[in-house]
Each structure stands twice: as structure tokens, then as C-alpha cells.
């Protein structure tokens, strides 16, 4: 019965709807279903754009009219200061983002925040890998009356993936 469905006509000829006919229809159906589902559920990757926005935000908030803000060298700046000053949500940053600000003073001053594991993954390729942006900028630093130019390097990374929300209402 599963082998073939035969259809007879009056002339006596037999047309067969073989299992191959059903098989080819199934294959076509499955392939189209898969392709359409893949197309409409494609993940729009904006990780590098987010990392770029984050780096711009950090560079803007530590720059006060071309001068590095004095708070930068405070002890608690890394822990809380930068989050408050730049308006960054610490919890979200620790989950999906990372930043590292390096200033070439002697000794080097580094301020970082977010998920520190992301730095090692920068440059790697893959779906679950963060994307990183590095920006360099020259800025002036007022060191007790002595103004000198310094270089700032900001590395930012984002690995945020959105989520489909289940439920909802038709309201």
C-alpha cells in the first residue's frame, strides 16, 4: 500500500503516484519551509555597532573640552565612577559588554568594566563570540598645572543577543 498508489483510467493504462512523487514533494516542502524559516528568523548582527556606540560614549564622557577628566585617576573610578559618569548600566555591562580604557601615562593607567572574558575572544569568529572595536584618541591631561598630550585607547566589545518573548496578548 505504501509502495505505490495506482490510478487506473478507462483505457486501461496505469498512472502511478509512486512514493518518489511524495518524496520529492516532501523534500521541496521541507527545503522551502527551512529556507523561509531561516530567512525570517535571521539574527541581525549589530554587535559591532553597539561596541562603536559604547566607545564613542566612553570617549565623550571622559573628555571634558579636550581635557581628560580629573576623576579618571580616582581610586573608585573603575568600580562605580565611570558607570555613573557615563550613564552605563553596570548589570547589563557585566552580562553582554566590555570596555577597557588604557592611558599611556607612566605608569599606564587602565580602567575596565563589564565582562572581562570578552577581551580574549576579540578577533575570533563565530556566532557566540563578541565583536570588538578599538579607538585611539589624543587628549590633553592637566597634571597639576602641567598640560601634556596623552594617548587614550578604548577597547569595547559587545556580545548581546536579543530574545524572542513568548506569550503576549492581542490587546
Amino acid at each position: 500500500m505504501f509502495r505505490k498508489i495506482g490510478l487506473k483510467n478507462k483505457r486501461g493504462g496505469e498512472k502511478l503516484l509512486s512514493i518518489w512523487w511524495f518524496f520529492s514533494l516532501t523534500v521541496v516542502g521541507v527545503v522551502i519551509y527551512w529556507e523561509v524559516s531561516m530567512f525570517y528568523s535571521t539574527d541581525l548582527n549589530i554587535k559591532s555597532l553597539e561596541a562603536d556606540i559604547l566607545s564613542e560614549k566612553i570617549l565623550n564622557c571622559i573628555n571634558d573640552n579636550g581635557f581628560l577628566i580629573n576623576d579618571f585617576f580616582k581610586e573608585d573610578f573603575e568600580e562605580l565612577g565611570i558607570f555613573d559618569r557615563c550613564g552605563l548600566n553596570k548589570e547589563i555591562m557585566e552580562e553582554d559588554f566590555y570596555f577597557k580604557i588604557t592611558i599611556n601615562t607612566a605608569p599606564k593607567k587602565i580602567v575596565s568594566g563589564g565582562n572581562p572574558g570578552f577581551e580574549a575572544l576579540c578577533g575570533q569568529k563565530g556566532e557566540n563570540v563578541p565583536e570588538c572595536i578599538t579607538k585611539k584618541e589624543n587628549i590633553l591631561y592637566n597634571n597639576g598645572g602641567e598640560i601634556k598630550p596623552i594617548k587614550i585607547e578604548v577597547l569595547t566589545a559587545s556580545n548581546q543577543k536579543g530574545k524572542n518573548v513568548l506569550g503576549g496578548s492581542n490587546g
Partner: protein
Amino acid sequence: MEYKRGFIFLNNKKAGTDVLSPQIMVTILNLIFFAILLAFIYRSSQGGLIYEQAYAKEIAMLIDEAKPGMDISFKMDKGIELVEKNNKDKNKIVSIDKNKVIVDLSGKGGYSFEYFSDYNVKTSFDEKENVLKIMVGNKNV
């Protein structure tokens, strides 16, 4: 319709047992198959999944780029078109919940994406201009 030895027959009073024409049978089955396929493709394209994701990400990025005190007008024509088709309240298209932007065009939950800025964000739909208004404020305001 009855089945005998794997064949499909139609009972006809005049001629006794008659056979359904294979061409008609194949055509009907093909039509049913492609109708189901086209219906699926149409439903997928109208479901708004891709628009929900695009809008959620776009709004999250706009918020992150904004500064406190800014009001943003966000045009989402295709989204409104889908919402009207689904008879959904336009004020419920976009909601903000703990740094999450949730865009729901179909009433099935939607798509959520987080913004990293610590802002107090409110949204409302401007029926007159048909745009979404996003108000970005300081966290403690």
C-alpha cells in the same frame, strides 16, 4: 470513495465502479501542496518577526546614542501596518521593561533587546503624527 488493492476508486451509479482521473488527482494534490506552501510563506512574511527584531535593535541603539532630556520621534510605518492588520493597540507596540526594549507587532510576545545606558526611558504612540515618541531621561528623574 473506496480503496481496493491500493487503488482509489469512485463509485458511479451509472457505470459501477469508476476511477478518479489520475491527471485530476495529481493536479489537485499539487494545488493543495503549493497552496499550503504559499500560505506558509505569506504568513511568515506577515508575521513581523524580522520587523520586531529590527525595530527593537534600532530603538535600543537610538536610546544608547541619545543624551538625557532628548525626545525622539521614531517612524515605523511597516510595523503600524502589521499592527493594524492584527487589530492590536498601537500603544502596546513598544514597551520598556528594565532596560529591555520589547517590540510586539503580532501580539505573540514580540522581541526584546537591551540598551546599556542607565536611562529612564518612556515611550508613547503619537496617533496624530503616527510616530513613536521616545523620551530619554536621567535614571533618578
